């Protein structure tokens, strides 16, 4: 079915509505599980399914209609009282809501027909609902061809084994590798390459000249085949490529994969490339970029060139990557707005037009009225800005509520009892931020459930309530939004973290560290203390990613924990990404902007020599940083200098500047990739006079400075 523009637009609206309906359906089901007799909830859930079916019908989306119809039929029986709500029923229905979401997301990507994998999934889910269907009167769902069934996945591989000349001398006989490969699966063909064998006179009988091409069919993953050659990898040329006959399988698998915007991850997940090969390819990529000082060669090209994977597979992965980015940009194309907010904005713009026209009228009573009109325009512009920004603000509650499902599923899987308590769900933040913080949050929630909260038995033994509590909380704090994920579990184990960090060589043994420094180690890449790797977390790939994501949003994350009592993860984020209230300061001929929400007060720098860059602030010691010094600004300091006092995580620090230039609404412009490594600067802005001012990133600035202070002060002592 071809989509014209009108249809596309209508479909976008349908997708937005359908997402809400499915979420309502899911929330309702979870609520029903807690209170099976909630009559109003039953009605709401039924209506959601009914509406979804109806709208899908309007668009001729038969697969959605057929599937929803069955769900609706089951819910109808619940509403009529002929079917009771049981945990079993809820467990059968919840995956159906996931399936509906998946179909809707496919629609959002413009895919109007279900793909084979999804259809097979749907058929399976519906058969799970059969026991709940009173008379089997459901429409037979449109069944797509099966074929994506989950048979144990056998892969065919082509191994190119170029053993090093010395391998025989090193005691490695290629024949034993061939023998071993036969135990991994079926060796369907071997070609022994004898071309490299020199003439008899020149042949060294102890060198290895043979190479082999082996066709292997095996259920073992590529990494396992790769591991066979661990001992000879260094001086051999071993390539493991999916057999040509398998290309289609990989291409299909990649297409059906969840979203991911990193092509390497897509390839590794598909099994066509191993982590090791990817790491090697990345290394080659970097090396070339360094040597050639050119744009890096795409990683896919390197993998093809190294003979690791065929072009067809890379193309499929690239397609997947492109689709992911497209979906992402689609996410923000439509947005639901509270009509009252939009009305307010339009009102304001109307007022602005009136105020604007009155500034043009020459006043009879001199310049005073004109100045007044000017002031009115300024006020209105400010309000319009606020109101326009608030259009993008959404409450974080809907994101929080999504975790109810996660908590339920994880608890079932791990045999834990946890209740989720949500507070502050009406705290608002930028829609783009909400979307980008939900993955890190999900990870924190899973982490708490998996590692934080103990099993019911263990909790009883420790005298805690059998049921654990996971709290999600959000509140506004000085221009930031703070999101907390708190559990009442076992807390972080300081000693174990430290031991692990020493083992991983993150810190030297015997380093004196404060508690918070120790706890922050969990955010280091590759750090994980979980002794058993569960399929939820514990792979050590989570917390560092969480931290990176949060930092990328100009936020920060901190841990608060007490042994046996629980852990709280606190994420602090700016409310919006676009505009901040700034405080403009001048140093020499340069201008800087300090985010106003960090500024607590301004004082004059006391005259006279000051030891160790500290001053006396009402009887307290206040360390300060001379911006002139830290940014290497030439010229003499002004005769009278000022100190802007900023606060970061409860710590106060002064910034010494020449002049205070006042408040300024600052539109943040990113610095561009050239400056992506610059710390202490979070962006730039253009001032009214056309000059550029850098925006100071207070957190890193202070952290960086106190690090250097510690080093400096440590030297004379050591």
């Amino acid at each position: 079915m071809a989509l014209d523009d009108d249809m596309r637009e209508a479909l976008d609206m349908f997708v937005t509505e359908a997402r809400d309906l499915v979420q309502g359906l899911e929330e309702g089901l979870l609520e029903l599980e807690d209170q099976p007799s909630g009559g109003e909830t039953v009605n709401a859930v039924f209506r959601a399914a009914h509406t979804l079916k109806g709208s899908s019908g309007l668009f001729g989306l038969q697969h959605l209609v057929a599937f929803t119809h069955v769900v609706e039929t089951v819910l109808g029986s619940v509403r009529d009282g002929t079917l009771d709500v049981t945990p079993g029923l809820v467990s059968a229905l919840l995956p159906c809501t996931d399936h509906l979401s998946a179909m809707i997301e496919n629609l959002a990507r413009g895919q109007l027909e279900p793909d084979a994998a999804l259809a097979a999934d749907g058929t399976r889910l519906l058969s799970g609902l059969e026991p709940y269907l009173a008379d089997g009167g459901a429409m037979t769902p449109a069944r797509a061809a099966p074929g994506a069934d989950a048979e144990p996945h056998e892969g065919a591989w082509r191994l190119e084994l170029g053993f090093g000349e010395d391998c025989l001398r090193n005691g490695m006989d290629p024949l034993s590798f061939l023998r071993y490969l036969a135990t991994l699966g079926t060796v369907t063909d071997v070609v022994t390459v004898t071309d490299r064998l020199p003439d008899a006179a020149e042949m060294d009988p102890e060198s290895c000249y043979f190479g082999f091409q082996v066709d292997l069919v095996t259920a073992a993953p590529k990494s396992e085949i790769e591991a066979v050659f661990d001992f000879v990898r260094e001086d051999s040329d071993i390539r493991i490529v999916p057999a040509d006959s398998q290309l289609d399988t990989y291409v299909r698998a990649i297409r059906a994969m969840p979203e991911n915007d990193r092509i390497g991850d897509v390839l590794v997940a598909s099994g066509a490339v191993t982590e090791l090969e990817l790491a090697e390819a990345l290394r080659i990529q970097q090396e070339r970029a360094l040597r050639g000082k050119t744009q890096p060669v795409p990683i896919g090209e390197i993998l093809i060139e190294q003979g690791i994977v065929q072009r067809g597979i890379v193309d499929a992965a690239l397609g997947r990557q492109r689709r992911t980015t497209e979906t992402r940009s689609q996410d923000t194309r439509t947005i639901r707005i509270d009509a009252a907010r939009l009305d307010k904005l339009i009102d304001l713009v109307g007022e602005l037009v009136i105020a604007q026209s009155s500034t043009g009228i020459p006043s009879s009573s001199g310049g005073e009225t004109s100045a007044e009109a000017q002031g009115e325009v300024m006020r209105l512009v400010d309000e319009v800005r606020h109101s326009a920004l608030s259009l993008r603000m959404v409450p974080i509650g809907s994101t929080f509520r999504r975790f109810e499902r996660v908590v339920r599923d994880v608890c079932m899987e791990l045999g834990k009892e946890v209740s989720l308590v949500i507070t502050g769900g009406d705290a608002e933040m930028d829609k783009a931020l909400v979307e980008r913080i939900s993955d890190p949050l999900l990870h924190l929630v899973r982490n708490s459930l998996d590692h934080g909260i103990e099993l019911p038995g263990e909790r009883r033994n420790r005298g805690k309530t059998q049921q654990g509590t996971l709290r999600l909380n959000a509140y506004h704090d000085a221009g930031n939004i703070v999101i907390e994920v708190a559990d009442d579990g076992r807390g972080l184990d300081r000693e174990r973290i430290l031991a692990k960090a020493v083992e991983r060589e993150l810190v030297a043994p015997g380093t004196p560290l404060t508690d918070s420094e120790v706890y922050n180690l969990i955010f280091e890449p590759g750090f994980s203390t979980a002794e058993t790797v569960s399929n939820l977390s514990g792979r050590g790939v989570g917390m560092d990613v969480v931290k990176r994501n949060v930092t990328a949003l100009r936020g920060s994350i901190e841990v608060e924990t007490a042994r046996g009592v629980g852990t709280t993860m606190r994420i602090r984020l700016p409310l919006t990404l676009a505009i901040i209230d700034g405080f403009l300061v001048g140093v020499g001929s340069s201008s800087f902007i300090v985010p106003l929400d960090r500024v607590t007060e301004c004082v004059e720098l006391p005259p006279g020599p000051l030891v160790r860059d500290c001053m006396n602030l009402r009887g307290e010691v206040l360390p300060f940083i001379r911006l002139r010094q830290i940014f290497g600004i030439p010229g003499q300091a002004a005769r009278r200098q000022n100190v802007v006092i900023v606060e970061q995580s409860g710590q106060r620090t002064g910034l010494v500047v020449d002049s205070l230039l006042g408040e300024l609404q600052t539109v943040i412009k990113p610095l561009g990739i050239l400056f992506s490594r610059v710390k202490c600067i979070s962006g730039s802005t253009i001032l009214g006079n056309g000059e550029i001012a850098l925006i100071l990133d207070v957190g890193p600035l202070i952290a960086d400075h106190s690090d250097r202070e510690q080093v400096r002060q440590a030297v004379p002592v050591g």
Partner: protein
Amino acid sequence: MTAPRRFVVDEELTIVTAADHRQRLLAALGDPNGLSIDLSGVADIDTAGLQLLVMARAEGERLGIPVEFAEPSAAVTEALSLTRLEL
């Protein structure tokens, strides 16, 4: 035409003995009547050994001397089937 010269390979045809075998094979390849390499006694063979056999055949072809292999032992048969080489 007289019968090809018999060349008996004893128990081990591996990297340990490869240098010796090479010398002996090269010497034996000087016989224009051809070479029949008896493999019945080979209990142990590895890649180095296989390479020697392939070398012998190639060298024979180069010199125009017929080289044949006789009575491969179980070890040799297994190695040949692993590598899908034919002698």
